[in-house]
């Protein structure tokens, strides 16, 4: 099939292309940006999961090699564990206080920002 002196080619070349709505480009770019952000967050989440999994695996191997395989060959005198619940309780309390402090600071900053915006 040759396109030379082709009746249909001549007819189709005169066929106008349909106009797109003016908002199409902006709407599409908004969707694309949202999709890119979603992909970025998903990749970040998987990155964190990989780091945590690798860290846990390394810690696990280290514990296993130390406790069960005796590598390295050293002996450690374990301290008296009777006070462990007390220290655990203090540790938990510290963590809770730290978390509460973080949340209160966030709340404080948010309120300050909203006040500035109102002014």
């Amino acid at each position, binding site marked *: 099939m040759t396109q030379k002196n082709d009746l249909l080619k001549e007819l189709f070349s005169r066929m106008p292309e349909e106009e797109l709505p003016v908002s199409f480009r902006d709407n*599409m770019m908004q969707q694309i940006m949202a999709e890119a952000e979603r992909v970025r967050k998903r990749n970040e989440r998987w990155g964190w999961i990989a780091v945590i999994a690798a860290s846990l695996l390394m810690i696990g191997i280290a514990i296993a090699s130390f406790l069960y395989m005796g590598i390295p060959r050293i002996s450690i005198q374990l301290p008296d564990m009777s006070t462990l619940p007390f220290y655990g309780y203090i540790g938990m309390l510290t963590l809770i206080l730290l978390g509460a402090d973080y949340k209160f600071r966030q709340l404080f900053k948010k309120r300050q920002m909203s006040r500035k915006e109102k002014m």
Partner: protein
Amino acid sequence: MRPLDTMELYTDTYYIQRIQAGDTACFACLLDKYSRPVHSLILKVVRNREDAEELAQDVFMKVFQHLPSFKGECSFSTWIYRIAYNTAISETRKKKHEFLAIEEAVLNNVSEQEVAESLGRTDDSGQLQMLDAALAQLPPDERAIILLFYMKEKTIDEVATITGLTSSNIKVKLHRIRKKLFVLLKGMEEE
């Protein structure tokens, strides 16, 4: 990022590399270049303005999502038309349509010369209206093939890549679709 008017001088590959490197805003340049022809093809295949706009959005979202899998085995324009063709054809398959069946004897009975002569008696806008009406009577896949070949000026090999058919199959199909269009155009002219 450079201003938009200077960026349009770059090739599709350049934009794709920039997008893959994280410069999502570069997708706007590909949109500027392809949104109108892709929308136009989809609209002519599905023949519904609202559906066409929605499908064009789907196509560009698919293009963005699958951009990392584009290996450059065909041109970017062929790749984007393949996505547009598959999306539009899938949509038309959801809706049942009946299309005109033309007998083989009738197809072979009309020559291009006859059609050209009878079309010569109609003005330009009338000819385009007749062509549009004739296209509307073709099944969507045939409509897409003829539009890709003539309107988008794709080669037979490119049309084969877009549709997933063989080049020889496309040649046969194009021959038959042309004949069908001639029969339809001649019929309209006689009316």
